[in-house]
């Protein structure tokens, strides 16, 4: 187990180097000049453009720029934002908390609710409840998240006035203590719901299929024959085995949830890194763009590692041989 973990950990640096190289190339080979994006919609004097180019090292050759970047990243320096003129790490970290809150809430909700819905659905396969859930899952899986977000705002913020439409806290009041936590929780409801729906649907589908498979096994029949109640068979016997594939899905989903958060953060004005990523693309703010991608990739790689280890730990049959 320890050896397996070590091998997996050693795999991370080459994976990251590969990622940095690919991302750097894609970002730098895309058309567009960060200096032009920076000087705005008016002709800039030549010496001004030249000075900015020198300041950010954009006057050097591409291989030299790449080498300088990779060595800096290896030292933990993600560079300096062209647009904000501040170190990238600080920019990313001050937004990471909000994104973590949103994605973890959404993922947790999607996983728990998804399993619950999947179990409910598998209990009486092909009943009307199952049909409703399966149909709902298809809709939930296909609905575009930005559109869903706007509908949620329209219904719950504009029409009913129950929940706030934008942001993470109420800006007019400045609640403190418990009131603040409650305020953030209220702001979190709509974006987390919008973000989780797709993954809830995916989890529910998988949990249903997995439950159905397990429910057909001999040991379930044995449990039923011994007189265990329906609920006990479902929750106590079937679910632990059926939940294993779902666990893999959670780790796998993290990357997608992070990607989806860019749209959700934009629609709900949630102050996370998703929106920062979106803005950096249009401003060709390479250091921020790369910095976010590196942080996100690292998170996904680590999450997958944790999932794999957890999987090996939970399922005694699987003891990987590294």
């Amino acid at each position: 187990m320890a050896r397996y973990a070590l091998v997996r950990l050693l795999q991370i640096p080459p994976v990251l180097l590969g990622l940095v190289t690919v991302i750097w190339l894609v970002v730098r080979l895309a058309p567009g000049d960060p200096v032009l994006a920076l000087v705005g919609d008016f002709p800039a004097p030549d010496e001004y453009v030249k000075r900015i180019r020198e300041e950010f090292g954009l006057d050097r050759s591409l291989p030299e720029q790449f080498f300088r970047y990779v060595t800096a990243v290896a030292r933990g320096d993600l560079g300096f934002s062209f647009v904000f003129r501040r170190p990238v790490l600080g920019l990313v970290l001050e937004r990471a908390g909000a994104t973590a809150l949103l994605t973890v809430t959404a993922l947790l909700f999607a996983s728990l609710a998804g399993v619950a819905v999947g179990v409910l659905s598998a209990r009486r396969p092909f009943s009307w409840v199952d049909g409703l859930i399966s149909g709902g899952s298809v809709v939930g899986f296909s609905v575009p998240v930005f559109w869903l977000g706007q509908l949620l705002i329209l219904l719950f913020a504009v029409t009913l006035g129950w929940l706030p439409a934008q942001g993470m806290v109420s800006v007019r009041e400045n609640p403190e203590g418990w009131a603040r936590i409650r305020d953030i929780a209220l702001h979190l409801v709509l974006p987390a719901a919008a973000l989780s729906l797709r993954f809830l649907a995916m989890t529910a589908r998988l949990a249903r299929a997995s439950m159905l498979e397990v429910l057909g096994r001999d040991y379930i029949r044995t449990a039923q024959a011994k007189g265990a109640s329906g609920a006990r068979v479902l929750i106590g016997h079937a679910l632990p085995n059926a939940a294993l594939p779902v666990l893999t899905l959670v780790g796998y989903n993290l990357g997608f949830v992070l990607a989806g958060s860019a749209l959700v953060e934009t629609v709900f004005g949630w102050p996370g890194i998703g929106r920062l990523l979106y803005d950096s693309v249009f401003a060709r703010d390479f250091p921020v763009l790369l910095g976010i991608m590196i942080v996100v990739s690292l998170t996904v790689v680590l999450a997958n590692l944790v999932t794999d280890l957890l999987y090996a730990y939970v399922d005694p049959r699987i003891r990987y041989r590294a």
Partner: protein
Amino acid sequence: MTRLVLFLVLVFATLAPAQTAAQSETPRHGGTMVFAIGANPETLNPAVTTGVEALGVACKMFNGLVYLDRDWNPQPELARSWTVSKDGLRIAFSLQPNVKWHDGQAFSSADVKFTMEEVLAKFHPRTRLAFVNVEAVDAPDPLTVVVRFKKAYAPFLHQMTCQEAAILPRHLYQGTDVLKNPRNSDAPIGTGPFKWGRWVRGDFIEMVRNDQYFRPGLPYLDKMIAKITPDAPARVLALEAGDVDYIQSFFLLKQEVARLRQNANLQVKQDTDLPGVFLLFFNTQRKPLDDKGVRQALALGTNRQQMLEQAVFGLGSVGKSAIHTGLRWAYNPAVDYTKLYAYNASKANALLDQAGYRRGADGTRFKLRLVYNVAQAGLPAMAEIARDNWKALGVEVSVEPVEFQVTLDRVFAKRDYEVTLQPYTTAGDPAIGIARAYVTMNEGRPFTNPTGYSNPKVDDLFAQAAVAPVRDDRRKAYFEVQKIIAEDLPALVLIDRTEVDVAGAKFRGLWQSAEPYDLWDRVWWTGGRASR
């Protein structure tokens, strides 16, 4: 017709009470205004940027020497008065006494001199060009600033607003790297009506009332909050939900305006910013657009009324001349594209035949690529209308929507296009915002003249108008140049835009300046207290 009457009645019904009330009511004190911006400002230093987010926030904390009134005339802000010498080579500003920076330090002419010489002349993307004409800035006493020019530059005074030339505190910027000064991103110190509160990155920026503000009794509001609302439809929903009180035109989804006018909790105001235009540039270095007859034919074959109605929802008017009709002193009424180039497909077809571009066997005369920034509201619809209109002329248009950065590269740097649609601001003066689209430009600089059109007479007239200290002389040159451009037509003005802002109905005193960045000290809330 009845629809039009009904519409006008509705417009007046929503606007008239607000205006008369504003005139008769006594301002009240206190309250908070939340205004929407689209993204985090890239800086809080208004003297080094033209970013709308940055200026929208920072100009509530900083001032220029002047502000522009509703007719774009400079009025006293940090400068109490000024005199311009007859030859235009010297402007002397007399500064407001008793102005304090937010940290308590006294404001003086040294701040103005430092900001002009060390910041605006070096770093401001737009105003930097005005300072090319400046010989020196003198500060003979603490309340006097004298700007001496090598060459007269008429629009200078109009550029001394917060938007174009905000004044920074010398004691915090001198000897530092201006672009990397920490005050640019945290706790900036200005002279404006509101002071720094806090910034929850990505969420909102809070500013609080400056009790030491130089205009006694102002500002009326206690707080100003910039709410970062990235998604345009969500921004409108936040306004309707009451989370946000004000959306400036730049951030407003124009297709929502008609609906918002019906909302009794809101007030909609048109004509809120310096005029802008939508331009159609012809690449005159490519055949067949090197022939002005072809350019004129394409202008005749463009249904600009349809563009006005369908692409910008009627917010503006069909362009009449190179100079926006809103710049009343400079617009030449003898030039009128709505008559000269009134939509007429058969006349356009005849002109193309005459120019020697006959239809081929498939009915096509020639092909053009139309490049535009897909993210710019209005342009996709205009591009489709142009393609449709020109099809009737036997001109096949391949519409090429690209991202903003790619537009800069293809249109301005490489001139790899035949026709392009571009939004330009006039910046309130033809010398700043209009000349750049027509004067000779050999290098590929963004937002200049990308057409390759070069006419020494045009260059000369624009240059004369920029330096003539007397407005009558400027007008003569502009009148003349508009006639030449109307004939040569390197670019066609599609639409003279008007800007529209929306605010909560309970706010008064808005829109007293021609720029959306000034005079927020006079805004008040009807729910406020009778006295402070």
